[in-house]
């Protein structure tokens, strides 16, 4: 469902899309069935002259079956959802693969500052490249990012990567992503951060190795 609206652009995006599709499928099946049942009952038992309603307490086993069996099945579906959700969550937020490069993201009212490692691939050296509101990364490389905030809460959200993480002042929050598609995409701030929340936009430019090298050369 989501893929048709926003293409998956990172290694974990297909996992998240799978969870969404799984939930979607189960929900459409059970929700559709319930709604169909609901309308069928409404039509079947509409008021008719001379027909009296049944007296049913809800304790009859042969009727309760109709509630209980679907309900047990729904519990099974819930367990499946929990399993896949937790697995995906673990992959995105808890586990960190070996990283190729680092970036540092600083949020403030109302702009993003990005610090790239520069040609030497190490953070905190003289050749670091700082950019405002544009993040340059290379396709097919695993990045570890560090999020910092100077003032209030922000949220670093890259819809194409299915990535979202709140930025909290006083903390250095780590995370990772691995872009798979080249192009220029939105970075949004997803947490209310004051008057300029709506203009706190940035772009992430995912480049091929050649483009990235050219950018590095030009930025230096």
């Amino acid at each position, binding site marked *: 469902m989501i893929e048709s*609206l*926003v293409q998956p652009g990172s290694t974990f995006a297909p996992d*998240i899309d799978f969870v*969404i599709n799984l*939930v979607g499928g*189960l*929900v459409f099946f059970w*929700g559709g069935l*319930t*709604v169909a049942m*609901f309308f069928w009952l*409404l039509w079947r*038992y*509409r*008021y008719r002259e001379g027909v*009296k*309603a*049944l*007296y*049913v307490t*809800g*304790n009859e086993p042969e009727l*309760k079956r109709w*509630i209980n069996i679907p*309900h047990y099945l*729904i*519990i099974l579906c819930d367990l499946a*959802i*929990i399993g*896949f*959700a*937790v697995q*995906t*969550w*673990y992959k*995105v*937020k*808890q586990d960190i693969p070996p990283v190729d490069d680092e970036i540092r993201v600083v949020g403030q*009212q109302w702009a993003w500052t990005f610090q790239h490692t520069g040609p030497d691939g190490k953070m905190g050296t003289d050749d670091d490249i700082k950019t405002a509101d544009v993040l340059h990364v290379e396709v097919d490389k695993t990045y570890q990012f560090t999020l910092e905030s100077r*003032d*209030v809460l922000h949220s670093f*959200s890259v819809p*194409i990567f*299915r990535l*979202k993480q*709140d930025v*909290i002042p*006083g*903390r250095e929050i780590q995370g990772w992503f691995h872009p798979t598609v080249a192009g220029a*995409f*939105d970075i949004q*701030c*997803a947490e*209310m951060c*004051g008057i*300029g*929340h*709506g*203009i706190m*936009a940035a772009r992430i430019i995912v480049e091929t190795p050649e483009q990235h090298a050219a950018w590095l050369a030009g930025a230096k």
Partner: protein
Amino acid sequence: MSEAHQIDGHHGHDAHGHHEPTFLEKYIFPLDHKYIGMQYMLTGMVMALFGGFFAYSFRMQLAFPGISVPGFGIVSPTEYNALVTNHGSVMIFWVAMPVLIAAFGNFLIPLMIGADDMVFPKLNRLSYQVFLLSCIVLGISWIVPGGGFGGAWTSYPPLSANGDYSMTPLGSSLWLTAVALEFAAFLIGGINFITTAMNSRAPGMKAKDVPMTVWMICIASIMFMASVGPLIAGAIMLLFDQQLGTGFFDWKRGSDPVLWQHLFWFFGHPEVYVVLLPATGFVAEIITVFARKKLFGYQTILYTAIGTGALSFFVWAHHQFVAGIDPRMANIFTITTVLISIPIAEMMFLYIATLYGGSIRFQTPMLWALGFIFEFLIGGVTGIFLGASGADIYFHDTYFVVAHFHYTFFPIAFIGTFAAATYWFPKMFGRMMNETLGRIHFWGTIIPVNFIFIPLFITGAAGQHRRIYNYNHFPDVSTPDLQTLNIVATVSLVILLCFQTVFLFNFFWSMWRGPKAPANPWKANTLEWQAPSPPPHGNFPPDNMPVVYRGPYEYSVPGREDDYWPQNQPN
């Protein structure tokens, strides 16, 4: 039976009663629960108009960025944030809670349990006065210099804690004060509801004879009281941060801003069920009456409500999956959150099962009740996307969330209220509402509401985030297609708001001009329908207080000529 009255009327009639009350005593400072309930309801309606107007203003800005909104003018970013914030807080704290719990709780609990009034009438009056004060404080917060508070209804520090960040130093404090006052009002009200339902029931009314509405309002009140403490604590701390300059949530002084989120959502999530349960209670009354059916599994519904209430204390951190909590905590909260769908789904199944074998009459209250079930099902199932932590990484703070919780809150706060208002209107005012206008209003509400929020599901799934002033800065999500969806949603909202005038006209016109209502126009069993319409002071004749012989949902009992069997009829 006069002894029964003696016991029920513990607070005595000497406090209020023997003389004919003056206008001021009756309508402005009433002790009678019915008038306090109506005060709550009318105040809630006024606040709903504000909330609707706010929604209209910022939706217009979103659909047509930069235009001068008719009736508001050009929406600046500051105003946009204030509108979004106050729309949320007004609709939840000043519309859903006062109308669903306070108004109908006040009006219905004593009538449904066959009592003459609340056990603490003076506390009840105080509750409304504190609530009114909170409304006034909130209103002042909109017009102080700097404008209304614009830090979202969740009011996360440091944005809300510091005037330099939020740029609304006065508005945010007044907003917070208003919220705290509002909680105090419902605290007092909730104590009253629970004590009344526990101690003032008519003779013979056992646990299984209590109408579902009373149960639900009581469970909701208990949940409210058990969850509101930490938020009041947090609000006091935040207020100190704002006004005294303390550092409870200030990271520069070694505190943690995320702490507020825990205190807030510890209340914030049970709050959802606090407003949900009363609405499900109303629906239970209405579907049984209009399907002429006994409620399917009374006890099971009760247990699911209690189970939901208990579980709801274990799910709050699902609002914070990406907000800086330990990722392991997110796993636990995923499990509890997905599990809470089980009792709620069971409850909805039982409501649908109640329709089986019925003789369903599609009058206005029934249409609303069925609309509630249908819309709430959509709202409920879309919550699973958000409760599953893996999927929530993507959906968090997008319009998908907005659409999801409006699909729950709209059925709760508005459809539930319309169901209850149309159903109990004859009892409240002694007159019938117009059926044709009621149906026009129903279809004019239920169709646009889907056209508001289904587009928002799609824009959210496409990556549009909440609370964004306009999307021009985000090239990926400012495509013409998404903008079209936003326009559809906004136009539907305008249509929806226009149709509410039908309801307002019907409500106030019928209040004075509607045909006189009999005592029991719907042929219902519960005790409030056995009192005259409208009930006099003291509700029931003092020498003939009701006595309960059976449960509230004995419809279509085989062997009886009538298809209903009032609770107080010996046989």
